């Protein structure tokens, strides 16, 4: 049933009894033309684009738990493109654009809000780095703009310049948007399911089978399934899954924590980055302040929060927004990211023919549609689009990395 105000109204009169599952809960068939491991935004998206753009509809998405239960469920919903190096700047700028028509395309409201982002700069050195980022990314159409103190004050009237790190200026990023994170998984699942894609929950892949030609199938908790094309879009355990095909992925698994306040009426529209404190926050549509910082300083698979990260984040926010003193910290959580040495994704073929990976997005929520599209294209055509040439696994054999770590908030 198409989602619209009209069907919603009609169902309202019928006590919503005709709504059907948003996606079919399938039992796996014996074989598929393509299988995607990982039922998050990236994996479901890849299946959707395989079906829609490449006509490959005999596809299964295998999810070991519930749909969108990985990093799709644990992020801060921010979609931004403030990257420094040409390959990343180009890809992420295109990635932001790829979100824009998604609600209509999927007939599922992912609640994309054009909030914009304001980065608060607290030293001349940061300002100088910002100039570099703004000037470089302008070439790829990004609209980041250095703003002076007066404009910053207009955008964030509540901000107070901290004594220890006085504000020197800011950057405005008009293209930054936020989206309802869970909705992207559900929207893709529903749209893919309509094309006939099988979505299999509670189905863990326990082995990958290969023969002389490459991938030939997977062993799962629901039995063996044959395929010649296998895509992997998992977060947090990418290393373990790839190892089933004897591929050693150069990734490290690191927690990323975030927290929310209890909800209040709208106080701030922009996503705010406090550069000097390596902290950012925004206000969700529900009214919570959603706050975050960098990844934890050591690797871990434990999706556990620690006390010191929320303390540091909130202390930093109070330096610039002291009026939030009586706001309330309500809930913290931790996701786990697979990150590469250069904090840049891998969307690539692998040494095993027919096995493709879309991993290590380093907080890859923001790239979901474009990465999924590129992954699907890679699976369908067995060659990378020029857009993702630089994201190949080969770079870890020749040292041609994209070392973004110096760039803006890249985590």
């Amino acid at each position, binding site marked *: 049933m198409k989602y*619209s105000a009209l069907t919603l109204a009609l169902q309202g009169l019928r006590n919503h009894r005709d709504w059907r599952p948003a996606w079919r809960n399938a039992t796996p068939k014996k074989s598929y033309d393509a299988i995607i491991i990982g039922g998050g935004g990236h994996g479901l998206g890849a299946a959707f684009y395989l079906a829609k753009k490449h006509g490959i509809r005999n596809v299964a998405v295998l999810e070991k738990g519930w749909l969108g239960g990985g990093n799709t469920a644990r992020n801060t919903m921010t979609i931004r493109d403030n990257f420094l190096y040409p390959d990343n700047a180009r890809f992420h700028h295109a990635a932001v654009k790829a979100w824009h028509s998604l609600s209509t395309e999927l007939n599922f409201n992912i*609640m994309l809000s054009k909030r914009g982002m304001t980065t608060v700069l607290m030293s001349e050195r940061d300002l100088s780095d910002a100039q*570099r980022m703004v000037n470089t990314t302008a070439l790829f159409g990004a609209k980041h703009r250095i703003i002076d103190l007066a404009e910053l004050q207009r955008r964030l009237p509540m901000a107070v310049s901290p004594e220890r790190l006085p504000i020197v200026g800011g950057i405005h990023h008009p293209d930054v948007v936020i989206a309802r994170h869970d909705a992207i998984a559900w929207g893709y699942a529903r749209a893919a399911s309509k094309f006939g894609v099988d979505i299999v929950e509670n189905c863990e892949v326990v082995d990958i089978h290969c023969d002389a030609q490459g991938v030939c199938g997977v062993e799962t908790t629901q039995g063996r399934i044959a395929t010649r094309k296998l895509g992997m879009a998992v977060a947090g355990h990418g290393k373990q899954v790839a190892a089933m095909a004897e591929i050693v992925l150069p990734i490290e698994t690191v927690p990323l924590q975030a927290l929310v306040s209890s909800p209040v009426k709208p106080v701030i529209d922009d996503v705010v980055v406090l550069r000097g404190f390596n902290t950012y926050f925004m206000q969700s549509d529900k*009214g919570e302040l959603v706050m975050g910082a960098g990844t934890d300083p050591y690797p871990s698979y434990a999706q556990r929060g620690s006390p010191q990260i*929320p303390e540091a984040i909130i202390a930093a926010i109070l330096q610039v927004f002291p009026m939030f003193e*009586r706001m309330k910290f309500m*809930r913290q959580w931790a996701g786990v990211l697979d990150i590469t040495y250069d904090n840049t994704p891998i969307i690539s073929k692998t040494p095993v023919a027919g096995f493709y990976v879309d991993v290590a997005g380093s907080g890859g929520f923001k790239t979901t549609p474009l990465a999924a599209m590129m992954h699907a294209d890679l699976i369908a055509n067995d060659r990378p689009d020029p857009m993702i040439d630089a994201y190949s696994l080969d770079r870890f054999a020749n040292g041609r990395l994209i*070392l973004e770590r110096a760039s803006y908030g890249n985590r």
Partner: protein
Amino acid sequence: MTESLFRIASAGRVDRTKKLTFTFNGRTYSGYAGDTLASALLANGVSIVGRSFKYHRPRGIMSAGPEETNAIVQLLGDFDEPNVVATMLPLFEGLEARSVNARPTVEFDLGAIKNLFHRFIPAGFYYKTFMWPADRWDWYGSAIRRVAGWGTAPATPAGGRYEHRYHHCDVLIVGAGPAGLAAALAAGRTGARVLLVDNQVEPGGSLLGTNLVIDGTAALQWIAGITAELDAMPDVVRLSEASATGYYDQNFLTVVENRPDKHWVRERLWKIRAKQVVLATGAIERPIAFADNDRPGVMLAAAASNYCVRYGVMPGHTAVIFTNNNGSYQHAIDLVRSGVAVATIIDLRAQADPELSAAAHAEGIEILHSSHISKVYGSRKLRAVEVVAKTGVAAARRIRCDLLAVSGGWNPTIHLFSQSGGKPIYDTDIASFVPGATVQNQLSVGACKGSFQLSRCIGDGLVAGARSAAACGFDSDDIAAPACTAEASLDIIPAWEVPLPKPSGLAFLDFNNDVTTKDIRLAVREGYRSVELVKRYTTAGMGIDQGKSGNVNIIGLLAEITDTKPGTVGTTTYRPAYSPISFGAMAGADNGHSIIPWRRTPITDWFVDNGGRLDETGALFRRPLYIAHAGESASDAINREALAVRNGVGIYDGTPLGKISVKGPDAVTFLNRVYTNAWDKLPVGRCKFGYMLHDDGRLLDDGVTFRLTDDHYLMSTGSGVAAVVLKHLEKLLHCDWPDLDVYLTPVSDQWAVICVCGPLARDVVRAAGIDINVDPESFRFLDTRYCKVAGIDARVSRVTYTGELSFEVVVATRHGRNCWQALLAAGEAFDITPVGSDTSMLLRTEKAFIAAGLEGDGHANIYDVGMGWVVSKNKGDFIGKRSTERDLSVGGPRPEVVGLLPDDTEFVPPKGSPIINTNTDDDAQKMIGMVTIGFHSPNLQRSIALAQIRDGRSRIGETISVFTKQQIKTAKICEPVFFDPDGERMRN
């Protein structure tokens, strides 16, 4: 003023001698010390305290604890604060509060019109609409944002003081109810260090709201006895109004203490490391889902009796009890004894405990078994309920009442247990989740473990306290458990919902986010079957109470709908904070410099006093970018300083540089392995420039290392990377080269470093009375000597960061300021000019002294930045060598550093500007390089820049295009050294 109709003459623990006046929604009321805002509102007959989140339905007080979902208020006045839970807020004189989420008033809320349309806005409705016009959610989103949210963020800081305190103890006990008090007593008597925390204003927990008997006396007396004994123990700390909010790794817990003993502190965050933890966090009563179960006047049964017994407030005059367990019978009796007329107990079960039934009958209470509520009358204030039998054809009966006390059973408060990493398991005896196996050094006792009988709570508490202390090495004799009022078992039958009389009715599960039974069914119908998906699709459990009262009912209902067991459905993840913590308490004490220290050199204050424009320059120092004269612009000041260094003399504070003493027989071997160049031939009394790489080939640091004695070197590092370099070097020694006999000692703070630079530098140090011969022949470039400058012991070296004749004067930190002043005084005759770091950046750009963080930004290797001359070809392995060789063998274009001379000599290429190939439209091929820094050089009287360009060195002499501000500017590629290419000036 006469006593309110709802206040019971003499019952309760409020202090009737202390009357307090407060304001709620603009009306003034009074209450007593010992009241919460909630009890005081009930005492004044205020039935509507808030409006619900989505449908704006009127809501009354529901509970008496932190699980409250309805009485969420905004504090006003001096204490402006959003989302305060009224049931946990002690009343104070002058308190001002208002309801949240209601416009214009809580009695007449325009938002309530949404209640009429509720059928059109079920769970997840927004996913299905607001997509027209194409993807303009923004339009709707901003409107929806305004009606979402609860309270209002204050516009100004409250100015409260907060503090953090670290605390260690042998046994931490969370909860001072019967189990927790018993545990504290048993642990305390052993002599162990005990910390007992409780979120109420006084200890006792559930006992405060009951009339139970312990050891033949009222429970309150038992509490007082234990409390007095605990307070007399020197190593027992007891906190009230202290909520344990987080349980982290290795028994690290956070506790927020409101109004601690120090009156100037508003809240204190305790950060506790406990050897053993006893959780005695109690249980939370849960509601039952029936039609309109959210009407003002519907309250949890234990809360209703708690208000009577503890606060002396009747939440209503005529009550009906609706229950599925034995626990509510005692509550009904307590209500009657408090003066509330209890007409009927409606029990979903076919039978109850015979003794309890008899006792209820004796109080004149009618009991209707196998029955349930079918209808609630009175939308703004309860007037009556309708009851029907579960089976059979008996007609519905209407019973007048203004209080409906409901109990759907009890949920152990397992939040902290779950946060500790433990997995909850479903216990069919109590129809709820209890702690499974413990994973840290922790025990759960009492109601939070599913033990609801008082005698067991106390007995288990005593055992747990003694066992925990024993685990820390403290033993003592067993304490006999006291005799307690006998209690029947719960004997519960789960009641996740009762049938709705008509399909359009609403039965709430999560009152905070307005999630109904129909929403759960809809979610399941639409395929959102996992408990996590149900939570996310319906937002159940995501409100201010974080699902404390509603979650288990949702799990139970979900199990019923999906035909499985609650234990199979499982819980969602419990995460900190158990109850919300103010940002102020999270941040702790702040003096403006708390979270980021400001490290100072001995000369920092001089710059503060003399116009230095300070800026963050790494390693927590703030250094002057330039030192502006009155009325001078930044660029004027930088130009003046730069000209002074090239033509006269400048002086610069280099103290933030990192310094590491490297000593031992293998020191030279070590230097050879960590630097790219060779150190074997450096004589004592000389120094040398070195480059350090990461093992991946990236530039790590550059700096000068001095040979002080045969086996003793002093390494200087960049200020920002000093700590990184020390860690890097110590790790190599420990992990990779344990055979090397070398000791590293960080000595950065030991020495003040003052640089005198410029053609007249020699004259200045002479005028300052340097006591060695500084002639060029006897004190050569890269010499270092111990001597006196202005009578101060110093080590002076001929090193430069500007390309000019320079003397680096190093003195002990305590003499730094004196030495600076002496050099300034000596230089006065030569017009000595203090210079800042922006100026030295300009000077180093003129000289193409490479900055690891700019020109070498992750892609460039040491050859790319033109520093190949620092790489020794004739020594063994060094850190970064293999990666640098790999770059050579892999081949391909390299990002090489070159100079740029813009054709327009006034055009300063902005940092980061792409250098583009104008012959292609392919975005990927277009950018061939980037400006790393650009300046207008006052010395060359033209603009200059450094840039990273693909194979740039082979293109020297070519003209390229710089893309800036959507324009294209041309520039000529040149050798990067713009000034004094042969370095004659620094060697002078």
